């Protein structure tokens, strides 16, 4: 069902937890309907210095969270905002079609975290 890469990120998720004193926090989803992802980021010099997640959800949701935090780290905020559901899924060598929408909230949670940071640090 899942690609090897999904299984790897699910079984050995990267970046689990919260960054200390996060600069931005974003959550997406709802446990009554499915998955919930919470992403915290540390921003330094306009770049995402660190990103961590906590996720309630299926294998895809956890793998997506792990992957999106890996992808974001080191990116400028603008680069990170360009991460999409599709690009995360691609990095994971694909997701089953029925999982593309419901469990693929990583990019949305990251976006919210960045927006949270931006709202606190207006330019």
């Amino acid at each position: 069902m899942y690609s090897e890469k999904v299984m790897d990120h699910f079984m050995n998720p990267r970046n689990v937890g919260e960054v200390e004193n996060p600069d931005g926090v974003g959550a997406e989803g709802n446990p009554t309907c499915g998955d919930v992802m919470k992403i915290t980021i540390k921003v330094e010099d306009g770049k995402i210095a660190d990103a961590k997640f906590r996720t309630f959800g299926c294998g895809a949701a956890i793998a997506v969270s792990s992957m999106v935090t890996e992808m974001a780290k080191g990116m400028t905020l603008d680069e990170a905002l360009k991460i999409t559901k599709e690009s995360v899924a691609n990095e994971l060598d694909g997701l089953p079609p029925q999982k593309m929408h419901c469990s693929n909230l990583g990019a949305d949670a990251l976006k919210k975290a960045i927006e949270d940071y931006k709202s606190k640090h207006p330019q």
Partner: protein
Amino acid sequence: MQVRYFDHAGTTPLDPAVLEAMMPYLRESFGNPMSIYELGGRASAAVQEARADVAALINARPSGVIFTASGAESNNFALRGIALARQNEGKHIIVSKAEHHSVLNSARFLEKQGFIVTYLPIDGYGMVEPETLGKAITKETVLISIILASPEVGTIQPIRELAKMAKEKGIIFHTDAVAAAGQIPIDVKELGVDLLSLSAHQFYGPKGAAALYVREGLRIVPLIYGGIQEGGRRAGTENVPAIAGMGKAAAIARERLSHRIEYLRPLRDRLIEGVKKTDNVYLTGHPAERLPGHASFTVEFVEGEAMLLMMAAKGIYAASGSACSSKALKSSPVLLSMGIPSSVAQGSIVFSLGHENSTDDVEYAITEFSVIAKKLREISPYRGGWGGVEEAEKCIPKK
């Protein structure tokens, strides 16, 4: 890696003795039972023998057993076949909210055909209360269908009592025994049911063979029209190998039933006890009135599919009623009807044991279950409790 298979409610392995009973019909005895030469006669005899064995499993007469191809077909046949046969007497049907999709969706189809359907509520154990049924019956009621045992929460319904209420009012009673057959003793006369569904792949028989018991003299409209197979009640060339296998599986189940129950119950009880040692894990379904090999839970703060995947990585194969684990992406309606909040229903895990499971399998599952629940809770934003989740207070199922 050693596989520990705990999904017998999903499907069972084929008993090697059953496969052996099927082989002649997959090889030299391939004839069509309708043909008059000896090759056909042999096939026809195999079907008749299997019919007697299946009938014996439920204490029915062989002529009451109609072979079908799946439990789903049997349920569609029962509901629609009786509804159509009785529609001039009334257009009201009662099913419970504990039913399998194949009953629920047959009922929904009948609604579109102009029938009125009452979906009976169930209690926190997944049980239909006879009183509730009593209130739902009207003068228009022609058919009641209530599942014998739930594959999702293991609860065994008080069918005898429910069927008696139907009989008193002259209403036809069907029970879906697909999850129960081969697990608990079934006697159609004692239960007092008019129709009963069963499916071979749920008791170590093959996929592709199932049956509907229809009480003698009860008229039912066919679901599949064509030739005169199955006394004109179900057309299509008989799946002789699968039917022969179903017969053998029924004969074995009948012979070993009490041994199997004696073996499974302590195993199940140990599994329940062991798994519940993990915090915030709750048994779903009835604690006593449940299938002997059935242990189902909700695991708070984690999602069932993730649990299943991590367990599978350890060779533990189980099931879940969570939305994400179902290919339809819907949480089990049975769990929700029991009053379990959907956030908690997401943590559904179902172990259904079989007689190949060993004590070692169970101890291994208990240990790994606890490790995996902890690991996933580590990742979960709710590891400390539901917190902001609206339904937080409702999260603990009724005990």
